[in-house]
């Protein structure tokens, strides 16, 4: 990416932060909070997610056969099925239906698939009046804007803005002000258009092959009217919406509303088996009793391929087809909460999973527009009701985008700094720099403090910003001359293996080893205080840095090296203890893709987050009084790390603080916004700060402002220091018996 492109991107993000950010933030935070509350009411939440996942896996596996079964069922019911190869094919068929019905007006309920087709434009070209009846979609139709969210398309607009829009467009006798007035106005106006429509078009959240039923999840009631009032019903749906049987719907009904907008169930879950038995509501025959009608309803199911069958064959994009478009991944995403789908989205789809959809249906270029906004924080993974590894899809697509570019201008200056394993020289130089961070850190440490003086010089920052887009407003981490590994080698262990209760290997992640050596030393002292024999072997970077830049081959190589460096220790029964949660997440999650299964399992089972390990030691009789306790330690404002929470190990930090009598106040934001290298990038600096501000607000409240700021992740510490202008430390530094922190 050139400097100019980065600036344009930064401008666009700044514009959205200013114009749409507040409305998006308020709404997504509300949905996200609602999700936590409503899934907590489900006793069997995890089991339901697994069941839903299994149904989708099975359905996509058997998709060709289910399409055949569904086609037979719908035809036996008296409907028609058309399997469209692509958008143009689907639109041609739908236009023919409109033409055959001499349709003047088609009313629609909300359907993202119809947005993917751009069917409105196709019909309008033929003179058909297309009316969106979902109130959010209608607002956008009036405003001529694109949806900014999968479920709540006008999430970026406030009540005031909608009122202004309606008052300008429709000039009502009395100006509209409140949401209530706006809703009544829209209901009346759209109600009249619906009863006068020739065709109703809906999407489908699910389709059952055994009965030919559509499941539609709505709250407004417009989908019910759209499907039932006119005598012709066209439903458009991606082929991935098919599930084998009606009974398969149950877990999805329980999960979809909770996951999306935090409602345990929406007002209406329509289970329609068209052509339906309900009478047509025809105001041209307004005095004929509904019961006396003998309607001959017409139903067309337009199933859309448009790249989906190819996605099914793609080992990495296939999971996208399990998506039920609930929007949980968007609502839980720190970046999405700040900018919404007009930045975090492609031609049609928005939010984390949009990368998979856009790459699959519109092509990689569309995904490339926003794919970098996924920082891999992984908060969406536990929110997803079908357990999709959304960050992995983003990483794979990023890797593919890296490989197809031709932006290799800096290659010659760069080769020393970026000894990666990627097989083309086409990766963006910024990504190569951050992906090869370990090399940079080694060099910086070896030449410290000169490297730090240089890095702080104005002209150097200017060059860094121009060439690789490191924002000059960010303070750069300072390298230590003596690494943790070197320090430990000369110091040696203080608890001998013979006297030890346990033996542990402290993994020297890049940041701890070269930059925040103090937290590594604190970790050693804490472990030794609990009679653990410690080793700090020179094991390399986990692969997190290259992976975050979409450099999968480099990450894969690093994973093998790390495993080689730890295998002997694991065989000897030593526990691997990890300070940096993002590296532990590599060991526990992504390494499954890089290592043989037995190696992955062995490392996963033998590795622990440092506070998880401290907790285990304390539970097994270690003397907590040898650590610094809350009696003389400071009151703490604690932010756990996003990936730490996804792994479910944040609870150990909480438990250790509690056991040792610390007074702790905890943040509840999803992500600090720094996310490794993300917040250093010039094009994302302001977005990163906006996300960080949510955290800063919590820690500047009166009850938090005098507390010691503590965070488990490297980048969280950096971010907190930048947004609060207060020092931030790792929990293990608080517990360090030598700690003087207040």
């Amino acid at each position, binding site marked *: 990416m050139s400097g100019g492109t980065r600036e344009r991107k930064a401008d666009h993000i700044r514009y959205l932060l200013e114009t749409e950010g507040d409305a998006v933030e308020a709404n997504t935070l509300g949905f996200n909070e609602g999700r936590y509350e409503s899934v907590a009411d489900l006793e069997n939440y995890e089991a339901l997610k697994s069941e839903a996942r299994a149904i989708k896996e099975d359905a996509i596996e058997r998709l060709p056969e289910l399409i055949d079964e569904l086609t037979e069922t719908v035809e036996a019911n008296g409907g028609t099925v058309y399997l469209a190869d692509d958008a143009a094919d689907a639109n041609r068929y739908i236009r023919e239906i409109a033409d055959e019905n001499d349709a003047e007006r088609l009313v629609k309920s909300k359907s993202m698939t119809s947005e993917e087709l751009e069917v409105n434009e196709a019909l309008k070209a033929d003179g058909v009046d297309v009316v969106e009846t979902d109130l959010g979609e209608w607002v956008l139709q009036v405003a001529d804007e694109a949806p900014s969210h999968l479920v709540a398309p006008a999430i970026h607009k406030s009540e*005031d803005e909608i009122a202004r829009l309606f008052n300008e467009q429709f000039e009502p006798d009395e100006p509209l002000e409140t949401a209530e007035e706006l809703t009544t106005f829209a209901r009346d106006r759209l109600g009249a258009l619906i009863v006068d429509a020739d065709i109703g078009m809906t999407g489908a959240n699910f389709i059952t092959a055994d009965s030919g039923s559509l499941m539609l999840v709505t709250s407004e009631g417009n989908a019910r009217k759209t499907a039932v009032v006119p005598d012709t019903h066209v439903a458009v749906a991606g082929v991935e919406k098919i599930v084998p049987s009606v009974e398969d*719907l149950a877990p999805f009904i329980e999960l979809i509303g909770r996951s999306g907008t935090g409602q345990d169930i929406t007002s209406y879950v329509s289970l329609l088996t068209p052509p*339906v038995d309900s009478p047509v509501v025809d*105001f041209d025959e307004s*005095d004929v009793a509904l019961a006396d009608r003998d309607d001959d309803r017409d139903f067309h199911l337009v199933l859309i391929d448009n790249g989906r069958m190819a996605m099914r064959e793609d080992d990495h994009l296939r999971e996208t087809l399990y998506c039920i478009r609930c929007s949980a991944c968007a609502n839980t995403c720190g970046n999405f909460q700040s900018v919404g789908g007009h930045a975090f989205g492609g031609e049609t789809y928005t939010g984390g999973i949009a990368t998979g959809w856009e790459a699959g249906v519109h092509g990689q270029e569309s995904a490339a527009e926003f794919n970098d906004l996924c920082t891999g924080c992984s908060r969406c993974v536990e929110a997803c009701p079908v357990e999709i590894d959304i960050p992995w899809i983003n990483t794979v697509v990023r890797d593919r985008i890296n490989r197809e570019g031709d932006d290799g201008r800096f290659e010659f200056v760069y080769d020393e700094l970026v000894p990666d394993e990627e097989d083309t020289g086409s990766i963006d130089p910024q990504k190569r720099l951050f992906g090869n961070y370990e090399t940079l850190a080694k060099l910086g440490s070896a030449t410290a403090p000169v490297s730090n003086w240089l890095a702080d010089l104005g002209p150097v920052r200017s060059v860094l910003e121009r060439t690789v887009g490191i924002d000059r407003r960010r303070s750069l981490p300072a390298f230590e001359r003596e690494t943790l590994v070197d320090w430990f080698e000369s110091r040696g262990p203080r608890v001998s293996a013979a006297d030890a209760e346990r033996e542990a290997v402290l993994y020297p992640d890049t940041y701890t080893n070269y930059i925040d050596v103090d937290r590594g030393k604190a970790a050693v002292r804490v472990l030794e205080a609990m009679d653990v024999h410690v080793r700090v072997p020179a094991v390399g970077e986990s692969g997190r840095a290259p992976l975050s830049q979409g450099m999968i081959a480099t990450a894969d190589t690093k994973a093998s090296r790390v495993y080689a460096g730890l295998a002997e220790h694991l065989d000897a029964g030593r526990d691997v203890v990890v300070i940096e949660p993002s590296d532990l997440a590599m060991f526990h999650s992504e390494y499954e893709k890089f290592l043989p299964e037995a190696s992955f399992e062995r490392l996963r089972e033998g590795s622990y987050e440092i506070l998880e390990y401290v907790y285990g030691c304390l539970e097994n009789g270690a003397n907590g009084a040898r650590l610094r306790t809350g009696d003389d330690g400071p009151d703490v404002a604690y932010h756990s790390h996003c990936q730490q929470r996804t792994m479910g190990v944040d609870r150990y930090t909480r438990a250790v603080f509690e056991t040792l009598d610390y007074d702790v106040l905890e943040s509840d934001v999803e992500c600090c916004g720094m996310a490794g290298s993300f917040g250093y990038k010039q094009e994302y600096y302001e977005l990163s700060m906006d996300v960080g501000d949510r955290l800063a607000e919590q820690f500047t409240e009166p009850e938090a402002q005098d507390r010691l700021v503590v965070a488990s992740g490297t980048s969280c510490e950096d971010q907190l220091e930048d947004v609060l202008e207060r020092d931030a430390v790792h929990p293990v530094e608080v517990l360090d018996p030598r700690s003087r922190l207040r």
Partner: protein
Amino acid sequence: MSAESGSVRNRFEEALADRDVALTRTTPAAFEATLQAVVTEPVVGTPLPFGDVSLPEWVDDEPTPATLEAATTGVTAASFGIADYGSVVLPSTPEGSEPVSLFPELHVPVLHERDLVADMPTAIERLGPELRDGGSAIVATGPSATADMGALVEGAHGPNAVHVVFLETDGDGE
């Protein structure tokens, strides 16, 4: 009635109360009077399939588009209720239960106490054969609503209020 079905009924009533959806219990003998107290005229409805009750004469049970549009209340039978969610399952019928439950401001579903199921999987199991037989149904929970205009509003394209009439039979110990 077993202790278990009693608790299912409690769960149903609590779920409705959580959503501020009104429920009135009645018996076949008191049905007409109860309905009269619940509805606002003009009232349209579709025939009730319960045997022990039917719609009173003052309910228009053969609505046309014109009377449907003019109606303030729609009365329809619920096939069954789902206790966990406070949902009523509304069948689509040739008499027009779907539009009658949808167009008027107030929807009054009549639910027979024997037709209460505990949870969603049981409800969907019960619906499976009906849908495979060509039937359609709406799982309706509370009034229609939208948040698309910047704040939550009850009453979007569908009713803005739901009042469940819960029909208890005299022979409670069946």
